[in-house]
C-alpha cells in the first residue's frame, strides 16, 4: 500500500484505463444502438428489430453463422491437439538452450503478413501450382486437382495462424509444472496416459482454456484467411458483416451482425468455462 502511493502509478494508469474504456465500451454501445435502428420509407431512422429479424429469416445468414461457430470450435480443438505435445516438448524435453530456437519457429508465422502468407499458399496449391505439378510428374494424379477453396485448406490455414496463441499459454503453464510431479506419478506406477490425464492436463487447464479462448476468438473473427482460402460454399460470417458495411452500405444491418457475433462468442466461451469449471480470472492469470 505504501509502495503504491509512493510510485504514483495510478497517475500513469488512469489515462490508459480511460483510453481502453473509451475504445471498448463506447463503440459497443454505439454498435448496439445502430443495430436497433432502420431507415424507414420516408428516409428517417426509427427504432426497430428488423435487422435481427432479417438474420433469422434469411437461411444464408444463420447457416453461415452456425458454420462459422462449428468450424471455429474444430480449429480450436485441432490447434490444441497439435500444440500440447509441441509445448510439452519445448518445456520438458528439449535442453533449455535450444528452447529459444523452437519458440522462434513458432514466431515465424508473424514474420510475414497474413496476407502474403495466404497468397503464398494460394500460389502453392492452385491448379497450376507446384504441388499439382509435382503430383502429376510423379504420376499420382492424372489431371490437376483444385486444392484451394475448400474447407480442409481453410482449416489448415487457420490452425497455422493460431498455433502461437495456443503454444505460448501452454508453455507458460507447463513451465510452472514441477517435473518431479510427473516423475512422482511415474514412480508410483502410472503410465504415459495416466500422467497426461491425471497430472499434466489438470495442471495445464487454466492455460488450455486461456489459449482456447484466444484461438477461438481470433478464428471466429478472422477475415482474410477464410475469405481467400475458403470456397464459395465456405462463407465466413465476417464476410457477411463486411458485405453489409462495404457492399450494401447497410451499416445498421452490419451492426446487428457484429453484435450477434459478439453474443455468440461470449456464449460459447461461457459454456466452455462452465464445462471446464474454470473462471475467467484464473484463466487470465
Amino acid at each position: 500500500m505504501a509502495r503504491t502511493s509512493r510510485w504514483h502509478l495510478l497517475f500513469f494508469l488512469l489515462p490508459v484505463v480511460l483510453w481502453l474504456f473509451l475504445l471498448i465500451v463506447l463503440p459497443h454501445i454505439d454498435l448496439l444502438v445502430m443495430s436497433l435502428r432502420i431507415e424507414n420509407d420516408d428516409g428517417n431512422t426509427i427504432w426497430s428489430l428488423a435487422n435481427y429479424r432479417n438474420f433469422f429469416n434469411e437461411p444464408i445468414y444463420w447457416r453461415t453463422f452456425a458454420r462459422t461457430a462449428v468450424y471455429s470450435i474444430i480449429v480450436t480443438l485441432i490447434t490444441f491437439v497439435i500444440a500440447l505435445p509441441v509445448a510439452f516438448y519445448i518445456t520438458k524435453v528439449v535442453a533449455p538452450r535450444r528452447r529459444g530456437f523452437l519458440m522462434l519457429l513458432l514466431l515465424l508465422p508473424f514474420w510475414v503478413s497474413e496476407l502474403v502468407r495466404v497468397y503464398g499458399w494460394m500460389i502453392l496449391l492452385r491448379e497450376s501450382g507446384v504441388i499439382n505439378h509435382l503430383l502429376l510428374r510423379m504420376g499420382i494424379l492424372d489431371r490437376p486437382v483444385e486444392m484451394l477453396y475448400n474447407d480442409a485448406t481453410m482449416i489448415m490455414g487457420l490452425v497455422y495462424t493460431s498455433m502461437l496463441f495456443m503454444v505460448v499459454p501452454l508453455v507458460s503453464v507447463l513451465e510452472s509444472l514441477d517435473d518431479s510431479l510427473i516423475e512422482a506419478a511415474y514412480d508410483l506406477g502410472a503410465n504415459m496416459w495416466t500422467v497426461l490425464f491425471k497430472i499434466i492436463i489438470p495442471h495445464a487447464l487454466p492455460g488450455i482454456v486461456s489459449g482456447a479462448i484466444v484461438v477461438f476468438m481470433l478464428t471466429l473473427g478472422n477475415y482474410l484467411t477464410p475469405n481467400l482460402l475458403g470456397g464459395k460454399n465456405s462463407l465466413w460470417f465476417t464476410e457477411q458483416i463486411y458485405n453489409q458495411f462495404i457492399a450494401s452500405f447497410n451499416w445498421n444491418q452490419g451492426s446487428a451482425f457484429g453484435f450477434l457475433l459478439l453474443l455468440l462468442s461470449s456464449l460459447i466461451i461461457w459454456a466452455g468455462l462452465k464445462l471446464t469449471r474454470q473462471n475467467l480470472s484464473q484463466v487470465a492469470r
Partner: protein
Amino acid sequence: MQIDLSVQDATKRFGTFTAVDAVSFEVETGRFFSILGPSGCGKTTLLRMIAGFEAPTAGRIVIGGADMAGIPPNRRPANLIFQHLALFPMMTVAENIAFGLKRRRESKAAIQDKVAAILDRVGLPGFGNKKIDQLSGGQKQRIAIARCLVLDPAVLLLDEPLGALDLKLREQMKVELKTLQSQVGTTFVYITHDQSEALVMSDFVAVMNRGRFEQVDAPMTLYRHPRTPFVARFVGESNAWTGEVADRDETTATLVVADGRRFRSRAPESLSIGDRAELFVRPEALILQPDPENDRLNRFTVTVRTILFDGANSRLLARWSGGDEDVTIALPQNRQFDHIRAGDEVEAGWDPASGILFPLEA
C-alpha cells in the same frame, strides 16, 4: 540377513563427465542407509539410477533379488520421496495416497482401507479429505511418506526431504523419521548433504565425493575413525594442521607443523619418518586446562579471540600465542569455563589417541 538393494559397480557418465564412478554397496532389509556428500558429488544421480529415472552407463542394480536393467520406474519395487515432496496439488490427501494403488487396479474397498490404515500409521487419521495446501510442512512430509509406504515398496528412497523445512521442524522430523522407519521396518535409502541428519538417523552412512564412496560405516565409526581426509573434514568440525613426520613408534607419530610446534598423535602404519601428513583434531578433543598430572597430552597455550556462544554447542576461537592460525575448542557443557573472556590466555591439550593422521598425497 536378506539383501534388499544391491548396487554393483554402478557408473553414470554424462558426456565426458563421470557423475557416479563404479559405486558398489548393499543394503540389508530394514536398514536405514544414508548417502552423505556435498552438492554435486553424484548422490542424486545415484538415487535416480536406483529409482529408474537414469539408466546406468555400466554396472548392475538389483532390488529384492531382481536385476533392474531396463525396468522403468513405474514397475520397480522402489519408491522415491522427492526433495520438494511432489505431492499432487490437484488431488486431496486421500487421492494422493490412493494414486499408486489405483494404478495397480486394486478394489475401491481395499484402497479405502489401506489409505485409512496408512494415515493412522503416520499419525494423521482423518486427514483424507484435506487439500494439499491446507497441510503444514511436517504434515506434507508425512503424507509424502505415506503415499509411498502404502505401496509396500522393497526400498524407500529419500532425496533430502527435510531440506525445505524450518530449522526447528527439521530437528523434530529427524527423530520422527527415524522412529517411523524402525516401526514400519521398510528399508530406507536416504541422501543428504547435512551430516547431522545422516549421523542421527542412519544405521550406516556412505560418504560420497566426486562420484565415489569414500567410506561406508556406522555413524559413530565414521565420526571417530574417518578413513580419508575428506571424511574427516566433511563429517563434523575439525582443526587441521599439515606437517612432517619427525619420529614414530608402533602406534603414534610425532608431527612437526609449520611453526615448529610438535604434536604426538596416533598414526596409521603406512606413515614413515619424513612423510608429509595432515592432522585432524576435533574441537571437543581439545581439553581446556587439562590435568597437570597427565603427561601423555600435547599441551600448548592459546589466546582466546572470541567466544562463539551457542548453548550446549559453544566453542572458543583461539590463537596460538604468537601464531596466526585459529584453533576451535569446544566448551564443555558443564559451564566450568564461564569465566573465560576474549583476550585471556588459557592452557589446552589433547590426547594423542584422539588425533587423526593421514599421509598427504604429494
